[in-house]
């Protein structure tokens, strides 16, 4: 079956979600990945939106995470303070989806600024909930196009921590163990690996070479000893995915 790059990314991300997990959903591809997982292998996936909606059953594909369609027929709506306070801060969210303009080899993300903070070349939207999510979830999933200007050796600004490098003994963060980070690009899957202490190439997408990945990455990449090829999407996955985005807004 034919499939596009975004379709492969979404399917690969969806497979990272397990039944019964709680996921903080972002709009766009992450939202598609969550809904795909829920309709296939993870019917008990609990979808939380930072807008305060928990257990959503959206009737259409929402443009924003505050869309009215995620409220109607959901299990619960709480305030924004409560969604951070009662769900994220106590470590009740297993998986968080993040994106970013820049990513470094430790999975740290910049969504704040390109250039100097005080004299920005490009002012980006900022943290939103990303920094909070990055501090508090067990597993971070990142879906992003693989480009050299994104995969940089040094971030212009560290908005959201990946590996939580500046670990301080007395710190309070809930998830002190090294947690899982997966970066799903249009070329490969990178994974934060205990053994290497940084992101390593874990899976190459079909027909992609390691050289191609390295060319599009701003640091010297390490590669997993058990490097695999990303399994192709199954028919059922593509079919359901296209049902979810019938007008191809994101696919």
């Amino acid at each position, binding site marked *: 079956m034919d499939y596009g790059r975004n379709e492969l990314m979404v399917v690969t991300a969806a497979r990272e979600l397990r039944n019964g997990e709680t996921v903080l959903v972002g*709009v*766009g591809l992450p939202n598609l990945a969550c809904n795909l997982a829920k309709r296939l292998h993870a019917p008990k996936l609990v979808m939380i939106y*930072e*807008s*305060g*909606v928990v257990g959503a059953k959206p009737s259409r594909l*929402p*443009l*924003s*995470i*505050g*869309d*009215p369609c995620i*409220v*109607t027929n959901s299990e619960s*709506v*709480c*305030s*924004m*303070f409560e969604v*951070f*306070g009662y769900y*994220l*801060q106590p470590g009740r969210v297993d998986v968080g989806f993040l994106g970013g303009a820049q990513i470094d080899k430790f999975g740290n993300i910049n969504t*704040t600024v390109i250039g100097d*903070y005080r004299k*920005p*070349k*490009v*002012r980006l*939207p*900022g*943290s*939103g*909930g*990303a*920094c*909070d999510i*990055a*501090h*508090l979830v067990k597993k971070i999933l990142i879906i992003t196009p693989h480009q050299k200007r994104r995969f940089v050796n040094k971030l212009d*600004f*560290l*908005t*959201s*921590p990946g590996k*939580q*490098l*500046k*670990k*301080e003994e*007395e*710190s*309070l*963060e*809930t998830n002190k163990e090294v947690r899982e980070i997966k970066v799903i690009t249009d070329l490969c899957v990178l994974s934060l690996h205990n053994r290497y202490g940084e992101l390593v190439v874990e899976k190459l997408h079909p027909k992609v070479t390691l050289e191609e990945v390295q060319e599009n990455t701003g640091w010297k990449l390490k590669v997993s000893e058990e490097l695999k090829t990303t399994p192709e999407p199954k028919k059922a996955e593509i079919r359901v995915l296209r049902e979810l985005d019938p007008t191809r807004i994101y696919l």
Partner: protein
Amino acid sequence: MDKVMDMKEAIKKFVKDGDVVYIAGFTHLINFSAGHEIIRQKKKRLTLCRPTPDLILDQMIAAGCAQKVVFSWAGNPGVGSLRCFRRAVEQGVPNKIEIEEYTHFGMVARIHAGALNLPFIPLRSNIYSDLPKVNPNIKFIKCPFTHEKVSVVPALKPDVAIVHAQRSDKEGNAQIWGIIGDQKEAAYAAKKVILSVEEIVDEAVIRRDPNRTLIHNLVVDAVVEEPWAAHPSYVQGYYDRDNDFYLEWDKISREPELVEKYLEEWVYSVNDRREYVKKLGVEKIMKLQPKRFYSLPVDYGLYL
């Protein structure tokens, strides 16, 4: 004692040049009507606070109302950049603005602490980020019980909060359903509160379901009955989000001239929200109407 007034009077009475203004609403219930009236009344040097500035602050910044923006995510939700905000930050157009930024949790924790009249509030975030380096208001302290290090942010107490709700009585007891975002905290944190509602209902409607009342009239200074006040944002059960306009704004906001033209046509040349809605037209109004989908009543019991 009567709090019911129109938006013109409410903005005139309660928003002063130089004020710290908090327009509440996360995607839902964003009070564009109040924002437009502030632009029409040419309020200046405002410190505008919102976790998500959204199009309303983009427009107010373009109109020259802002001196400073306090925020956590300045984008066009689901679309991309907030281009007027960026022009002000990157190029000082139409004027330089100061920024003060937090995470979402930091922003809502600040307004939450303001509502509670706490001087500060702890939260488990920020510690591994560069944000505290550029914002001295994000500090760290040691827990007096566990001796862990935890980040703290100060309370935010705006001069004016502007909130929108589905309904209230004429005293301002407001009921909200759908995404409640920061509406309650904003109302309880601010010195003055302008509440607008889709409909003013009889006190008896409110009293039939007191658990639904999110904001009590004690904190409300002005009650404005203003249908469609939130467009192009939305009101759960009343009208849909105008996603087309959010996409269109991405084009408009690329060019200062187009923004100028938009403001001229939809803000300055329009006297009030009623005219704005008329201008929106029947087709748009009908298109944004959801189907009815009612909650079931609950029994409070009458205890005699």
